[in-house]
């Protein structure tokens, strides 16, 4: 090997190492036992009203039109699928989508919180992924905060007469991204940096979570649009009874 080649090889490996060292992490739910007790309780308590309202909303929606049950099942299954697919991202680590944007757009954020918590419990118990103690925090980020943003954005963009598919894409995309921003905030709140406090910690966690999540959020937006196209084609009646 000539000297030039050697240098090139060294440079290339350094470059590769930099890429690899740059945040390698599982940007996902907060792990079991990783939030101090008071925050676990705090986030859990915040979730309760949403879940209660969600439960009542589901009853109301189904009471209005029993047939929407199938769409509800589909929405829940969508969350199940998307949150089980770990997808490689540009930062060299994997993360998964939330799939809650669809529910938020069709049924509103409260109903989505019920769908989300089912998935979170499944993963916490069977997969040791996320956790029972951090259920409240994870539920808030993935099943409440994200969907709320999706829902608000969707309504606003629709009022502004933006193309419907663009509305759905943007809502699902930013909802997914916001979920991970909230996760960063939750971790930062529990673990403020010595220098710079909560703000510095947020920046650190955001660096991992948000960058990893960015391409995945785009995929989530796309898939949500695809599902809505399918529903618009084949399930017009149900959608109209959801006032979609």
């Amino acid at each position, binding site marked *: 090997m000539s000297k030039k080649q050697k240098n090139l090889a060294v440079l290339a490996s350094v470059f590769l190492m930099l890429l690899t060292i740059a945040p390698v992490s599982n940007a996902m739910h907060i792990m079991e036992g990783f939030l101090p007790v008071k925050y676990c309780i705090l986030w859990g308590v915040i979730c309760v009203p949403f879940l209660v309202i969600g439960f009542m909303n589901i009853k109301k929606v189904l009471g209005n039109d029993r047939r929407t049950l199938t769409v509800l099942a589909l929405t829940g299954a969508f969350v199940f699928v998307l949150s089980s697919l770990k997808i490689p991202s540009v930062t060299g680590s994997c993360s998964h989508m939330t799939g809650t944007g669809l529910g938020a757009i069709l049924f509103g954020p409260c109903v989505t919180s019920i769908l989300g918590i089912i998935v979170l419990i499944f993963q916490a118990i069977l997969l040791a992924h996320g956790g029972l103690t951090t259920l409240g925090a994870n539920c808030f980020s993935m099943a409440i905060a994200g969907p709320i943003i999706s829902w608000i954005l969707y309504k606003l963009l629709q009022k502004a007469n933006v193309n419907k598919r663009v509305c759905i894409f943007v809502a699902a995309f930013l909802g997914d991204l916001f979920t991970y921003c909230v996760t960063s905030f939750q971790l930062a709140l529990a673990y403020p940096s010595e220098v710079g406090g909560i703000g510095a910690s947020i920046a650190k966690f955001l660096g991992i979570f948000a960058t990893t999540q960015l391409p995945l959020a785009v*995929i989530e937006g796309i898939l949500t649009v695809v599902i809505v196209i399918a529903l618009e084609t084949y399930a017009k009646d149900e959608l109209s009874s959801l006032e979609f």
Partner: protein
Amino acid sequence: MTKNTKTVIILLVIAALIAIVPLFALKGAEFGGSDDAGSEMISEIQGKEYEPWFTPVLETALGGELPGEIESLIFCLQTGIGVGIVAFVLGRFVERKKWQDKENGDSTSSK
């Protein structure tokens, strides 16, 4: 091919590309690591090793971590449940629309 079909196919291809490209662009990257990675950041901020105060129920029951293969099994199960329901519901919708279209066609032709 209808316009919708085209849109759907293009969208799905884009989604697949976004998912696959990093795998080839970042050869040698770990893609996943472990759950320790998130805790590393916490340790870094705190300046000391963080001890989780609660271990997952399953790990307590198993007396150790869930084996990787089994974990992927359960993840597959989760995907399977989801895809099954999505496919079932969409299949019903598609068939229903076929019947509805047919019935509508019959009623208009008999008039």
